[in-house]
């Protein structure tokens, strides 16, 4: 046994030290927790402090600059004069002002003097009246009633002694009874109101002078003035470091309420610069301003597009509903931006900011302030994504049509069964054992008869609807049924395998096809093509005339021509610089003459093209167009037009031949095509069909036998809400998580290396090259490969499309945040779908700030811009909607003289016929009206007819040398119209709206800046417009509004009047005759 201490070691050993240390450590832990709570998890405190100091420094700098600038301005003579004016006005106003002030003071005193007595008396009398009133008005209470009435009268008669001050400051004692008090009090109130008003009048010159001074300063020194800057500086310097929070929930809901969205934004706690309290609206703050341009950690810039806050008020929208991110988690940048694994709504990267718009603006085809999103939506349609992928809201007509056709088919079936059942029921009724049963059966039969007739009515309606829909359904790619008439067979395989070589800007994606697949597809398409009836042979045209026409008609709004840097024109339709290599001249002529002409009508109920034989059986001629669109076989609507958006330019055959001849010269001289004898090999047919179905060719092209092919792609309507697990990264899964791109490079986003295992990453890579997801996969059967071809888009377009897809979500925001207007804005929303569908914006400017394709072409620059199609920003206010309807239906405005533009015959560019459906026309008219905030329905203003005297005044204005109207406006006289640049007045009456016309002739530049129509023809005199030019004395007598007069005159314009006037006006600048004859 070792030596043991006598004292018990357990007892004697002190635990003080370990416990002390433990508690000390615990204390440290608690302090750590405190630190975390107040600093560690609250990095925004640091940001706010940093911002306050940097921003104060900036403001001080600004203030100094401002002070200096203000000094300069204040020493200028103009300023001095204005200040002198102000002082003078003040001096003049001051005595009056003081006098009135004095009077007001007296009134106030008087009011105060009687106030107490008045209030006391009023309440006393009031209570006595109450006591009187509650006594019943019967005989029993008569005496009491009277005594109470007496009380009231006594109280009213009772006088109060009031110390009444007068203007000299003396007080006199007055005895006032109830009535006097009451009246006196009201009189005093009136008097004070009067005095105050007169004080304002007296000060008006001062105010005007001050306004003038302010206006001068605002003009000379825009931005915040030094006082405002000082105020701002004060605010910033005394900035309260605090959490800034926006509760993004429907009104009345707290953060975590049921019914709320649970969104709380604290973004402004770090992004201090977006807080209007510190950076007022209109004041732009950048990192550079704060001297932090190089910092990656300076979230202080103000919002780059503060206009957005007009429609998205910060206090209801916050930041994260649009931008994504975890708006409430401020512990780190990563968590706040939601860029961690488990947050479903990460912050969008800058290139995808507009994804946020799409969440609520998915019903828009065109969203203001979202150019990339608008481009993406155009691309989604133009590049044919919509062919294979369903997206709710996009080109739903094809689906609607399918539904309609299906419904008609099923109704017909129902009708057949009903028709068979009716006689059976009647027979059963005849044989029924008793009358009640018989009646029941007869009634059933009768009901069926009625329902059959109802079916007929419904079918009729559906047929009508499908007529409209057939007009609206468009396909992305050309009709391949006519491939034999249209194309050079050797070209087809070349195109399939070298799509982007042939046309680097084509909308056709590049399919990754094996040579045998190319052959099979070519053979199938060729053999499936229509073989007749044969095309008319066309004589050759004049290519040089054709070139002029091509360049001037407006073809370039959609088509482009030239290669590389030479390329001009739009990208909605094909580049035509090699069209001569592939096309058949005869077909091309027909196409240009009317692109909607079909070789044979397609019957969607029989699922085949109709032949002349089908028509002959019913004794009908083989004629099919929009007026003859019913099938001779089943009576339903046919496809009678080509499903292309290419409009009809109403050209003569000769013009069509000229253009076609020109286009046939567009060839690459070095092009070489291999023989394609296999194209007629029937053994390739089946394989080709399988491939065509596999790749969904019929989703974009019309192909015989596959007209009703269903979309093969995924529905993308809510693609952005799909969980990441649903995306097949295939063998790239690990690479995506490690941030290694398919090309082996490391992904960098926002300056930081990043993984791409997210939706953005998937969309990016899928759109860049869909094939990579097949890479390394064992797919011996080519049919197992992914269907998606490589879309022809540049990286910028890809970013736009990715934003679009990211924003395509099942929004978690309440429905009230969705942009689904029910007022006029709904018409705008609907109209944009049509405007973008037919590429109206290729020729016209419709939205302020939007540029048409033609506006960018070299041939319309500078003075030549006079040749551009009209600007339509105020179209709804300009024209009569009834007229617009007829114009859209037939822009020639004539059934016979179609080779022209109905309004602007002087323009070389021509408004073509789009064969819009009734519904589309209706929507477009409403769209233009809504865009100009016009009331619907349109009721034209009643214009007073002109008196003879008025007519002569108007005539003298119209023909005044100061208003050479007919110098530019067309008259219908060919010689005169050669140099015309504006429409004929004869159209005005039916075409225009009077109020707009009046505004137009007075201030055209405010409606369409840069217009050729001169401003200043009229000047404002008092409340009327007066012609700004010499007028004969008789006309000068006229006292009415002369702009109104001229408008009425124009609306009454007749050809006789016009021809009478043409003799009197210099008709064209070079016509020789000078000033007007009187």
């Amino acid at each position: 046994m070792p030596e043991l201490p006598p004292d018990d070691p357990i007892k004697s050993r002190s635990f003080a030290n370990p416990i002390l240390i433990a508690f000390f450590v615990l204390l440290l832990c608690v302090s750590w927790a405190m630190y975390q709570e107040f600093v560690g998890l609250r990095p925004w405190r640091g940001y706010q402090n940093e911002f306050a100091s940097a921003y104060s420094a900036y403001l001080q700098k600004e203030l100094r600059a401002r002070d200096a600038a203000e000094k300069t301005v204040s020493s200028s003579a103009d300023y001095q004069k204005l200040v002198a004016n102000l002082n003078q006005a003040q001096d003049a106003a001051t005595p009056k002002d003081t006098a009135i002030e004095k009077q007001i003071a007296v009134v106030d005193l008087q009011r105060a003097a009687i106030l107490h007595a008045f209030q006391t008396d009023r309440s006393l009398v009031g209570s006595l009246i109450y006591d009187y009133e509650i006594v019943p008005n019967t005989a029993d209470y008569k005496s009491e009633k009277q005594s109470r009435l007496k009380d009231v009268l006594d109280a009213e008669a009772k006088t109060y002694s009031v110390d009444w001050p007068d203007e000299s400051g003396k007080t006199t004692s007055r005895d006032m009874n109830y009535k006097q008090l009451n009246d006196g009090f009201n009189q005093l109130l009136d008097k004070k109101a009067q005095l105050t008003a007169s004080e304002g009048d007296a000060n008006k010159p001062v105010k005007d002078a001050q306004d003038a001074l302010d206006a001068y300063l605002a003009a000379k020194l825009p931005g915040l003035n030094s006082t405002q800057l000082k105020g701002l500086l004060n605010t910033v310097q005394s900035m309260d470091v605090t959490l800034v929070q926006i509760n993004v929930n429907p009104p009345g809901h707290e953060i975590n309420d049921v019914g709320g969205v649970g969104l709380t934004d604290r973004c402004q706690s770090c992004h201090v610069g977006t807080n209007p309290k510190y950076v007022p609206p209109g004041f732009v703050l950048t990192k550079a301003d704060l001297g932090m341009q190089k910092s990656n950690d300076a979230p202080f810039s103000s919002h780059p597009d503060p206009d957005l806050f007009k429609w998205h008020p910060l206090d209801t929208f916050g930041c994260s509903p649009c931008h994504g991110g975890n708006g409430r988690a401020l512990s780190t940048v990563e968590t706040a931006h939601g860029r961690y694994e488990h947050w479903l709504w990460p912050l969008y990267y800058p290139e995808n900011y507009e994804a946020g718009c799409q969440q609520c603006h998915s019903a828009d085809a065109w969203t203001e302030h979202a150019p990339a999103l608008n481009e993406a939506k155009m691309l989604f349609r133009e590049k044919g994504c919509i062919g294979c992928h369903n997206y709710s809201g996009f080109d739903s007509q094809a689906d609607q049509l399918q539904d309609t056709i299906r419904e008609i088919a099923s109704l017909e079936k129902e009708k057949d069964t009903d028709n068979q059942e009716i006689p059976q029921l009647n027979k059963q009724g005849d044989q029924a054992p008793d009358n009640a049963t018989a009646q029941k059966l007869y009634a059933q039969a009768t009901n069926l008869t009625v329902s059959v007739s109802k079916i007929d009515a419904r079918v009729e309606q559906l047929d009508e609807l499908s007529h409209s829909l057939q007009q609206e359904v468009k396909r992305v790619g050309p009709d391949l049924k006519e491939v034999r008439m249209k194309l050079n067979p050797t070209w087809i395989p070349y195109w399939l395998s070298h799509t982007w070589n042939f046309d680097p800007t084509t909308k056709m994606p590049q399919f990754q096809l094996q040579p045998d697949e190319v052959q099979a597809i070519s053979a199938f398409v060729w053999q499936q093509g229509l073989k007749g009836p044969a095309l008319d042979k066309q004589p050759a045209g004049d290519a040089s005339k054709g070139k002029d026409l091509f360049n001037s008609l407006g073809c370039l709004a959609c088509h482009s021509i030239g290669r590389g840097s030479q390329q001009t024109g739009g990208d909605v339709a094909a580049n035509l610089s090699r069209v001569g290599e592939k096309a058949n001249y005869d077909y091309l002529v027909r196409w240009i003459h009317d692109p909607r002409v079909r070789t044979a009508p397609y019957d969607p109920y029989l699922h085949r093209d109709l032949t002349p034989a089908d028509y002959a059986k019913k004794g009908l001629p083989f004629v099919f167009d929009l007026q003859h669109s019913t099938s001779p076989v089943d009576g339903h609507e046919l496809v009678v037009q080509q499903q292309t958006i290419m409009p009809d330019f109403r050209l003569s055959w000769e013009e069509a031949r000229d253009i076609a001849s020109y286009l046939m010269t567009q060839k690459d001289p070095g092009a070489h095509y291999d023989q394609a004898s296999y194209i007629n090999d029937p053994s390739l047919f089946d394989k080709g069909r399988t491939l065509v179905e596999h790749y969904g060719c019929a989703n974009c092209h019309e192909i015989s036998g596959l007209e009703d092919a269903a979309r093969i792609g995924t529905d993308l309507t809510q693609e952005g809400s799909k969980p990441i697990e649903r995306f097949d990264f295939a063998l790239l899964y690990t690479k995506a998580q490690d941030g290694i791109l398919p090309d082996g490079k490391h992904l960098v986003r926002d300056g930081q290396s990043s993984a791409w295992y997210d939706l953005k990453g998937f969309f990016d890579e899928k759109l860049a090259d869909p094939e990579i997801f097949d890479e390394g996969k064992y797919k011996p059967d080519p049919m197992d490969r992914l269907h998606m071809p490589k879309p022809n888009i540049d990286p910028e377009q890809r970013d736009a499309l990715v934003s679009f897809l990211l924003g395509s979500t099942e929004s978690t925001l309440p429905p009230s945040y969705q942009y689904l207007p029910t007022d006029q804005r709904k018409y705008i929303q609907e109209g944009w779908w049509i405007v973008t569908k037919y590429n109206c914006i290729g020729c016209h400017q419709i939205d302020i700030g939007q540029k048409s394709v033609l506006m960018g072409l070299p041939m319309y620059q500078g003075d030549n811009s006079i040749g551009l199609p009209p600007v339509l920003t105020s179209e709804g206010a300009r024209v009569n909607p009834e007229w617009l309807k007829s114009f859209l239906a037939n822009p020639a405005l004539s059934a016979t003289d179609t080779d022209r533009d109905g309004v602007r015959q002087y323009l070389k560019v021509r408004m073509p016929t789009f064969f819009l459906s009734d519904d589309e026309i209706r929507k477009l008219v409403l769209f233009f009206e809504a865009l100009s905030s016009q009331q619907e329905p349109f009721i034209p203003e009643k214009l007073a007819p002109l008196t003879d005297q008025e007519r002569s005044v108007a005539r003298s204005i119209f023909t005044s040398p100061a208003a050479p109207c007919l110098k530019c406006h067309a008259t219908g006289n060919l010689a005169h119209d050669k140099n015309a640049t504006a429409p004929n007045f004869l159209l005005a009456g039916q075409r225009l709206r009077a109020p707009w016309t009046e505004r137009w002739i007075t201030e055209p530049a405010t409606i369409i800046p840069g217009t050729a129509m001169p401003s200043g023809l009229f000047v404002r005199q008092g409340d009327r417009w007066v012609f700004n030019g010499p007028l004969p004395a008789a006309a000068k007598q006229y006292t009415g509004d002369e702009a109104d007069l001229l408008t009425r005159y124009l609306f009454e314009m007749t050809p006789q009047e016009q021809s009478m006037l043409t003799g009197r006006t210099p008709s064209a600048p070079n016509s020789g005759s000078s000033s007007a004859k009187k």
Partner: protein
Amino acid sequence: MWGDWHQLWVIISAPDNIPIVAMLVLVPFFTWYAFHNALANDRLIAQLEADPQLARTHHRTTYPYNSRWERELHTNPFLMRKELLAAVIVTIILMIWALTLNAPLEEPANASVTMNPAKAPWYFLGLQEMLEYFDPWIAGVIIPTLIIVGLMAIPFIDANPLGNGYYTYKQRRHAVWTYLIGFEAIWLVLVSIGTFIRGPGFMWYWPTQTWDPDRIEFNVNQNLDQVFHVDGTWLAHLLPSSWQSSAPLIAKGLFGIIPMVVYGVLAALFIHWICMRTEYSRKIYRKMSLLQTVTLYVFLITMLFLPVTIFLRLVFRIKYIWETPWFSI
């Protein structure tokens, strides 16, 4: 892909895996510590057995002893101060843990997005792992029940009066081994497999092998009867014609009993052999009541069945040993 150390780190550093990682350190430590104590006691026992004289006078603990010292101490403060210290230290550990690691919070629950792998909390991963080897009703219901009942039965079937209240290995060899096998070799190993080895699709990934959600594994698990080609053809001849179509089922059912019985007998013999190894254990064995003996055997046989089955599955790809229409083992 092998050698993916990042993957291993991801697994180990997952906040919810910290406890099992800690257990992998703590359990060996405490095992060592228990043995450290036990062996000290064993040495004392050996010393006392060698010297009966000393045994009569010795205070019989390994802790320091002085007869003048009080045999019992006041709880306050001598125990309480230690408890206080322990509480403070636990609080410190807890706070540091809570300050450095955040409790996991993933996406909001979504029944349409399956987690891959979908794992139970770590302490139930042993059971989830067992699901791989047994039908759910065994792994999820029978085995947990048996574990609980078995644990509760321990005091009643352990007839050894020695080692009551002190660590010892020598005097409770069988008991100690049983627990070590049951708790550490089976339970903790299963939990560890469930945590570290099972990846997407609950497939087997060796450490440093990359977890790949697209991995496809081909395993043919056969029933033992298939290995032996039991298809009931010979049985069909024996049965009345009306029963012939169910011959394969009957044959399988009957065949399955054989390995079960064989295993039962072998395991029982093995246990019996263990129990009979020393004079003392024989003595205890004799002392046990029939019920005690039977219970002991049943539980031990069942417990040993787990590693055997797991071994058969992992190495020989045996799915069921005994398959009947109603249940399969």
